[in-house]
């Protein structure tokens, strides 16, 4: 579903993401972790087509994000870290705009909009202008919009920021349900507990390179630590001196 093929992105002289090769199959929930400035946001921007790789390619459902961005985008839902909405549209108008952008038939769009309004409990404010929404309300609306077309791939950048505990529960349940139906989720987060609870696999990026790729037990195995929490493992692997694990991780065939 998602393929990074030796994807590299530089900002001037600084290499933000270096030679990223990664494949995420259908129905997997993948969590990308890493300290600030590790390259997570750059990776996500390449995945949703906002940034083009300097070298290599990014493919979604077989479509190259640089060469066929429109076809690739038909399969992607995206929830950014800061919700992008039109202040002067109501929530309902925004959902219709997104549904129309994806070319959904009217009767189908109406049903999906109703479904997502119910799922994310938007009914109370769906007819208000988005400029009056709180951050959490905006985030719920963006979640609803991103799921309208039942995307094959859902990309989440710090998805729980601004959400109250009830909304977090709703999102977690939805993600579980959708992944079991075959949707692939690519999530960047700093919330280790959520990554541990939800993710099928983890990727840990440090200074633009993927230092680890696998499950939490695999990470423990690699770090030779049996009972350590993900937090401790994460802190160990993101320390500047853990090049041994990094080298091992990079040398593996991550496909």
């Amino acid at each position, binding site marked *: 579903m998602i393929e990074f093929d030796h994807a590299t992105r530089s900002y001037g002289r600084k290499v933000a993401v270096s030679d990223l090769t990664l494949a995420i199959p259908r129905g997997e929930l993948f969590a990308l972790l890493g300290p600030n400035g590790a390259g997570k946001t750059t990776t996500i921007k390449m995945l949703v087509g*906002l940034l083009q790789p300097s070298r290599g390619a990014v493919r979604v459902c077989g479509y190259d994000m640089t060469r066929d961005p429109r076809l690739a985008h038909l399969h992607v839902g995206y929830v950014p870290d800061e919700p*992008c909405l039109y202040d002067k549209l109501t929530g309902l108008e925004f959902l219709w705009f997104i549904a129309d952008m994806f070319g959904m038939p009217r009767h189908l769009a109406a049903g999906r909009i109703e479904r997502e309004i119910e799922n994310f409990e938007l009914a109370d404010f769906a007819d208000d202008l988005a400029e009056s929404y709180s951050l959490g309300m905006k985030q719920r609306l963006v979640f609803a919009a991103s799921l309208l077309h039942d995307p094959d791939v859902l990309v989440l950048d710090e998805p729980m920021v601004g959400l109250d505990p009830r909304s977090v529960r709703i999102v977690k349940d939805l993600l579980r349900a959708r992944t079991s139906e075959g949707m692939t989720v690519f999530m960047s987060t700093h919330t280790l507990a959520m990554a541990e609870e939800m993710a099928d696999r983890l990727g840990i990026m440090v200074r633009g390179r993927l230092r680890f790729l696998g499950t939490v037990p695999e990470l423990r195995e690699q770090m030779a630590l049996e009972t350590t929490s993900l937090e401790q493992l994460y802190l160990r692997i993101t320390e500047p001196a853990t090049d041994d694990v990094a080298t091992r991780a990079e040398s593996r065939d991550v496909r």
Partner: protein
Amino acid sequence: MSTARIHGATADTVRPLSIDAEARLFFRLRAQIAWATLRTMLATARLRLSLVVFLSAMFWGAVFGLFLEAFHFLDALHAEVIPLLFNAFFSSLMLMLLFSAGILLFSGLYCSTEARLLLTLPVRAEAIVAHAFQTALWFSCWGFVLLGSPMLVAYGVMRGANWPYYVVILPFMVSFAVIPATVGAILCLVLVLWMPKVRAHAPALALVAGCLVLVAIGWWMAGQGRVEAPSTTWFQQTLSRLSITEHKLLPSWWLSSGLLEAARAGHDPGGSLLESLSFLALLVSNAMVLQLLAAWIAKHVYRTGYSHVIAEAPTRRRRPLGWVDRMLSGSGSAAGRPLRLLLLKDLRIFRRDLSQWSQFVIFFGLLGLYFFNLRSFNYHTAYASVIGYLNLAVVGLILSTFTTRFVYPMISLEGRRFWILGLLPVGRDQIVWSKFLFSFVGGVVPCVGLVLLSDAMLGLPWHLVAQHEVCCLMLCMGLSGIAVGFGARMPELHEPSAAKISSGFGGTLNLVVSSLFILTTVLVAAIPVQISSLTAALGVPRLATRGFLSWAGGPQGLVASYVVIVALGIVATLVPLRLGLHAFRRLEP
């Protein structure tokens, strides 16, 4: 692109839109946003909306009257000049449209959250650019229509044009405006893609280029020597300089020629509606070809250009003005240090915010250019004196728009950072005083300089220069006091947008009070001098010896005007500041 190529779980529910469907969707989006904006304004900013409509109508009427008189005058004396004026007017507007559309488009396509949203949706790059272009065209066109339509209607009335003339005005103006705006769009797209080192500074570069072009034109128009204005020599020289705008490859010439033909059609043997429509066809066809070219370029470069812009390496900030910062933070007593640090913070925000300093540079730069060109005219002393007061009022009015737009919202904008200020050992009074000082010092330097330039170019005597400078000082002080005082009295701490804060009730009230203050101050300054000049010019000795006019036109009137001006300035500064300080001390964020 067919749905057959789509595969995956979403294949049954989604399909890529046709280009027509994308255009319709964006049109509906703009209509929905415009309608919601209008409804919000009607509900929350009726005063502002009414003022905008009223002042626009007044402005339209005044420009119409002015042009009608001017056309009657010219038609009787120099009818051959009118086509030249049309060409000069529209060629200068063409240049302004090109730069304004380019800058607006850069902001809409590369810096907006809307672009970030649209680029993650299955929509064509050229459709996004077309959507941003139409928004930019709307914003850059309204001024063009507001300035151009009264002139064209006045010409039609003077010429006794038939109805087809009035019908074709709008199509002519729109098709003309599309051409420079599209050229601006193409330049914007290409500049961002091909000039990687400068793309992050594209708006600033466009701004500088625009100002340079205007300065060059102004310099060239100013000529080399001083001539008596209005004299035949001056008139001939001016006509000769303007003749460059009559080049037949310029869209402004097509527009002017087409409209002049339409005005003459039906009652003048030289005019032909068919000929006029052929110019319209020329404009429309060129606009369409340029649109196609822009769409082709957008399709190939927009996504790559956007990627380049957001991948711009954060360069290490050079500090050419670091010495100013060090001087401000390091000098003076320890007691005044918090105040200086607050000033330093606002100064840094100002100079790193392109939207603030660019408007400051454009408006004061253009004003400076106009004042500089006053040297070309040897005005009679009485005229020069009137023009000096008008220039003083213009400087004040422009400063008042800045204080309303940028100074009035300053206190409100601290809202989300209020906890920072609240935790610092800084009194609330100091926050208000720092804003006042920032506004006063920032305003007084360019304004005093501009008034001095205007008076020097007009050749005014020293006592008038001194009076203008005192007025200017009081205006800067009063306008800063009004903006900061009202801003502290009516803060909107939860509103992050300066534009929305300044366009609300408080901002509108600030603008109205500021305008009244300026007009009163300038009138009080002008009345004694003008009465004195008038009585001397008319040779009416009784006026000079009896009653109020005698008193006002004499030395005692001048002294009284000084007293009133200074008193007005102090009242305009202290009363709003006192109100603001009182309210701000009790404010619970």
